[in-house]
């Protein structure tokens, strides 16, 4: 395709208009575009992915929002925190004799006569937040790169234009660039004029920097994403997505907030998400992200056996030094970090391996607990931790709860993305009285531990949402409130001050954890027979072994096997699993 008459990055709405008009001109009926794309997404895809412009698209976060200008293309990575239902809007309408579209826009760009013909379409509203517990290393790297890129990008434009404004201020670059562009089509001009007007209007409100005063900070940054033409099943609650779309900011809509009489028919949820706090994003393309999408600059793309083994050894060493030279604990932690729910049968979640490290007291927790926590934080993209105390249980709101006053899902500490790691420090727990909140919170945690499910409170009923959370419990004795799959008393021998790890090594380990974790796994029929025989023999010996113990053993075997990058369980690994379990049992008896 020859050079496009618009800049996809700074004026995506131009692309929307041009493609729409092209489609109409080619004789399509606007009614047929209901729930369907007319080609704009293809254009953008080509621009972003084939021509590699994706890296030029800034990532929207609480910092970049101050310098990204409205109506430009942005990326946003976040977790779907709440679904606000569908919104009906005038998708296409007739302005005089020409059809116009409002898709991907909050406000009609052209006056809509009340009598004009129009088509009503719908879009989905998603309330998205940055992934809870996202480690700083995943974000830092991304935002740094974007800032440097955008600075470069901005300076390029500054060369073109002579404008003495603060570079950080709401730059008019894109709209002005439009003026420079060769006369494309008439509509383009109009569109650009409009956006220019809009910018000026914004600028009028207050000068330069404060023009878009976003009232956001890193803690409660969120984004209202409007998604078009998707299947219901594509987007689920707590999924992590990357949305690429237009960031819109409409000062007009703010006025509404000031003096609107709250009327019940309006969606209250939107009232509580004012545009100056919650940016709007009209999404063109959305991609579901997995944990490994957050690992940047993967050193290796393909799993090569010796690299995996090397990474495994290195990581195991690292974990051992963190845990005071406790080899068994290091192995258990490694397996724990690799665990994920790979299947569910009825209420049983397969593949989870929660770990309870016991033998911590208040002194040792400050040494090993903190070391372990920071080690995990530097290894996994999403980590969270909280202390388990009576006060915390009694006061915290762990489960997400539907607030019918605002018609929103109020998030709770247990609303987490898939693959989040959660550390619970039980050493702080004193005796005390739990109130009803405390009891239900304790029950929630237990349920999460046992079934990997979180009950969301919808006031009139509860709804169980599946979760996939790796739980690590640090406690003095075996935790009875939180019965983990694997209980191991830690036996540290030396206290080593935390050493600095080479960033390359960290990168490798991150990559190792995220890629090995997703490996599929299988078993030979012969091996299956061996397993069965071993289990039967074990049970004949010790009647107290139950299905839970078997499940744990099999999960451990599977994880040991995957930790070597294998997709098939071998006899050696099975022996290793049994040996590890034996060592663990021995320790428990001591």
């Amino acid at each position, binding site marked *: 395709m020859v050079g496009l008459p618009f800049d996809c990055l700074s004026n995506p709405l131009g692309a929307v208009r041009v493609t729409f008009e092209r489609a109409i001109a080619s004789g399509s009926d606007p009614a047929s575009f*209901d729930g369907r794309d007319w080609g704009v997404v293809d254009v953008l895809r080509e621009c972003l992915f084939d021509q590699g412009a994706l890296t030029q698209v800034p990532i929207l976060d609480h910092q970049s929002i101050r310098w990204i200008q409205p109506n430009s293309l942005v990326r946003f990575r976040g977790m779907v925190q*709440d*679904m606000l*239902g*569908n919104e*009906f*809007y*005038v998708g296409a309408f007739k302005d005089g004799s020409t059809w116009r579209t409002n898709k991907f*826009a*909050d*406000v*009609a760009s052209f006056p*809509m006569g*009340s*009598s004009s*013909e129009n*088509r*009503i*379409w*719908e879009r989905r509203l998603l309330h998205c937040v940055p992934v809870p517990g996202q480690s700083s290393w995943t974000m830092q790297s991304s935002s740094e790169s974007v800032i440097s890129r955008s600075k470069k990008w901005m300076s390029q434009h500054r060369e073109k234009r002579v404008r003495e404004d603060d570079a950080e201020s709401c730059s008019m670059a894109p709209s002005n660039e439009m003026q420079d562009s060769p006369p494309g089509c008439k509509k383009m001009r109009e569109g650009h004029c409009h956006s220019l007007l809009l910018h000026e209007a914004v600028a009028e409100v207050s000068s330069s920097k404060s023009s878009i005063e976003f009232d956001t900070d890193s803690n409660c940054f969120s984004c209202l994403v409007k998604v078009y033409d998707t299947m*219901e*099943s594509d987007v*689920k*609650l*707590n999924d992590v997505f990357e949305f690429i779309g237009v960031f819109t900011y409409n000062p007009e809509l703010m*006025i*509404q907030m000031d*003096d*609107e009489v709250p009327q*019940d*028919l*309006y969606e209250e949820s939107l009232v509580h998400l004012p545009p100056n706090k919650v940016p709007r994003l009209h999404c063109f393309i959305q991609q579901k992200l997995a944990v490994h999408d957050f690992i940047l600059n993967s050193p290796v793309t393909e799993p090569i056996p010796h690299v995996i083994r090397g990474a495994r050894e290195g990581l195991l060493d690292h974990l051992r030094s963190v845990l005071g030279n406790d080899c068994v604990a290091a192995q258990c932690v490694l397996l724990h970090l690799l665990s994920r729910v790979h*299947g569910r*049968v*009825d*209420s049983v979640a*397969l593949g989870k391996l929660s770990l309870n490290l016991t033998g911590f007291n208040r002194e040792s927790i400050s040494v090993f607990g903190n070391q372990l926590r920071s080690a995990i934080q530097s290894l996994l993209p999403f980590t969270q931790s909280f202390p388990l105390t009576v006060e915390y249980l009694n006061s915290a709101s762990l489960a997400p709860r*539907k607030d019918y006053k605002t*018609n929103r899902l109020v998030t709770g500490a247990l609303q987490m993305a898939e693959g989040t790691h959660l550390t619970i420090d039980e050493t702080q727990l004193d005796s005390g009285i739990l109130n009803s909140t405390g009891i239900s919170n304790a029950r929630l945690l237990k349920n999460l531990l046992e079934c990997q499910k979180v009950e969301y409170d*919808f006031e*009139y009923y509860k*709804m169980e*949402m*599946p979760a996939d959370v790796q739980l690590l419990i640090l406690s003095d004795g075996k935790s009875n409130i939180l019965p983990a799959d694997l209980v191991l008393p830690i036996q540290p021998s030396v206290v080593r001050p935390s050493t600095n790890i080479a960033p390359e090594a960290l990168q490798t380990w991150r990559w190792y954890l995220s890629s090995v974790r997703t490996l599929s*796994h*299988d*078993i030979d029929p012969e091996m*299956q027979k061996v397993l*069965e025989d071993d*289990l*039967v023999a074990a*049970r004949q010996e010790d*009647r*107290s072994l*139950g*299905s839970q113990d*078997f*499940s744990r053993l099999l*999960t451990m075997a*599977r994880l040991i096997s995957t930790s070597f990058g294998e997709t098939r369980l071998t006899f050696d690994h099975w022996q290793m699993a049994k040996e590890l379990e034996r060592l663990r049992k021995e320790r428990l008896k001591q």
Partner: protein
Amino acid sequence: MASDSSPIHSYSSPIDTTNSSPGTASRRRGRPSRSSTATPPPQTPNTSRFAATPDETPIPSSTPSRRRRRGSSGTPMAATPTSTDDADAAPSSEGGEGEEAEEAAPMFVWGTNISVQDVNAAILRFLKNFREGSAKTEWKYMRAIHQVLELEGESLDVDANDVFEYDPDLYTKMVRYPLEVLAIFDIVLMDMASRINPLFEKHIQARIFNLMSSTSMRNLNPSDIEKMVSVKGMIIRSSSIIPEIREAVFRCLVCGYYSDPVVVDRGRVSEPARCGKQECNSSNSMTLVHNRCRFADKQIVKLQETPDDIPDGGTPHTVSLLMHDKLVDTGKPGDRVEVTGIYRAMTVRVGPTQRTVKSLFKTYIDCLHLKKTDKSRLQFDDPVATDTGSGNNREEDPISDYQDRVEKLKELAAQPDIYDKLTRSLAPNIWELDDVKRGLLCQLFGGNALKLPSGASFRGDINILLVGDPGTSKSQLLHYIHKLAPRGIYASGKGSSAVGLTAYVTKDPETGETVLESGALVLSDRGICCIDEFDKMSESARSMLHEVMEQQTVSIAKAGIIASLNARTSVLACANPSGSRYNPRLSVIDNIHLPPTLLSRFDLIYLILDKADEQTDRRLAKHIVALHFENPESILQDVLDIPTLTAYISYARKNIHPRLSDEAAEELTQGYVEMRRRGNFPGSSKKVITATPRQIESLIRLSEALARIRFSELVEKKDVEEAFRLLEVAMQQSATDHSTGIIDMDLITTGISASERMRRENLLSATRNLIMEKMQLGGPSTRILELLEELNRQGNGEILLTDLRNALATLSTEGFVAVHGDSLRRI
């Protein structure tokens, strides 16, 4: 055309109707050649109840005002015979429709090919001619209209299924163009009403319900706008009642002149700029007189999807409902309802002062009819229980898909292996324990409760006790049943007190009255009360169960309240053996360690023991290995999901009431006699009771439940056989005398087996003999341990100290010996 006062839209609330309607009024007539003055559209003002509830809503004073308004608006109501809202309008003849068709040129609803006259005629035909009942003799709606007239009602409920049955075309039109068709519907009703009773002045509205298909809230999309939809959901919030002004009256502050009522137009009241009185004519002097204005109730209700409609990983959708007049407050938050209404959308203004219209629409449903539905758990109402007054809007359960579901269930029941299939479906993730599951299945279905005219009643509920080693998934079974049971309460023995289980009396802190609060057992009336850790329950709490489990009532006598509450509940309890692990060396009864009085009230007692059986171990191992390494979906057997299972059970409990066939009764008697005979060994002095009358009741209940499982109204021989088998399995596990291996009901009823009793008697006589031999009357005391050694030396087998103490206690009551601590003396 402006004079065409078709109010379908003219009074529309703030709500701007969407594109299709604004034109309706002005362009309703098909032929533009006709001058507007001749427009006789039947849509008199009172037809606009959807756009905004009619200004005409029957308020006694409304008639005069209506007339006045019509006069003032100058609408030529002239020719149409349908505009009969004047009571004294020329009585149209029977063939009114026909005449009309001739007289007036066909009018069409704008944008459609629907002729107003055709629809009018079709509705009239439907109302007049629709009959129901098997014999088709009842004129359903004519009778209903008469009823409405008699009761001075305001609305006529119209079953959309009836409309469909009578005239599918009318139904389609009604669903697609509800605003127009319902307006005509109302006019026809008014017309008929005034013909029947010329003095009837109220406005009757047609309330349509029970559409052929109901839409899921999730699937409401732009194409549904302005259509009639039916949505199921749960009310989550209702606003306070909003008085919406319908007619405003103004008064001149200068001369005190009252204006004519001003009708609200599109949510706006236009305040007269000048006083209407010629002489006064002062400007800006008019003020609103509140108490002379007319208001209508309005309420905004939020409806949310019910949990079962929400797909995986979704959040529930909500939709707003607009309720008017009578519908206000018909549903409360938490109610599950089915709503029929018109899906509407309105544009959103950016701000009240701005004309810019956001490109957005807010959607809501203008509610026509609201029906409370029963929840997915299909709570089962036995005929006795339904006597609680049903709500005014509660219909008889005519859900259209209900029949389909029943058909499906019946198909299921007809399968030959349904019994096994249900067993398999019950807690499929719990391994083995098939017979326990069968017993639980029987409990879920239950037997028939019987009430004799004499007042004696026999319970139909089956009580089950599970005793077993820790870690044998008893609690999981309990939880599963709790989830499945139509009404289930789960209680843990340790955390339950006697009053918490039954009922307690408290003083209301505000009024000071004593009130009765129900406990778990009363709350699970007609359900299953699951009690975990039955053995750890306090003695007093357990004793409360005696009454509940046989008499099925809870009697309270305290603080001035003497009451007997129904607690027709099945009890499912589980307990650990007394030593927490089953001790095979002790007798069953010593292991269970529950009072025999309570034990005998359980129909089935299962011992779930963890036996060292390689076969089961292998199966378990295989299962778990498969679970972990195979595709989880592939190992799911062919089982019923929980909703189906619940529906199946509820339906059976509600509708199937099996009776004993003669054959089955015969089998029962024979079996029972056989069981009792088993205890009599020829030549043995021991009399073992292997069956008691309680057993035969249990057997009847079990066989009834088994018949229910098959949806059979008759208990057959095979049911009885299976019941015997189940009972025997349960008894073999619990009531087998450890020392002889024979089923011994004495174990359950008295706690002591017959052989044990024999042993005790032997010991007693041996002790007596020994004491007679060795000790003199009034002689020195002897230590009990010495006595024990002596007895053992005599070769009476191993005798325990406790047994000896028991024997001595018996002897001391006879006055034969005196026991002081460790020593005894003969007296």
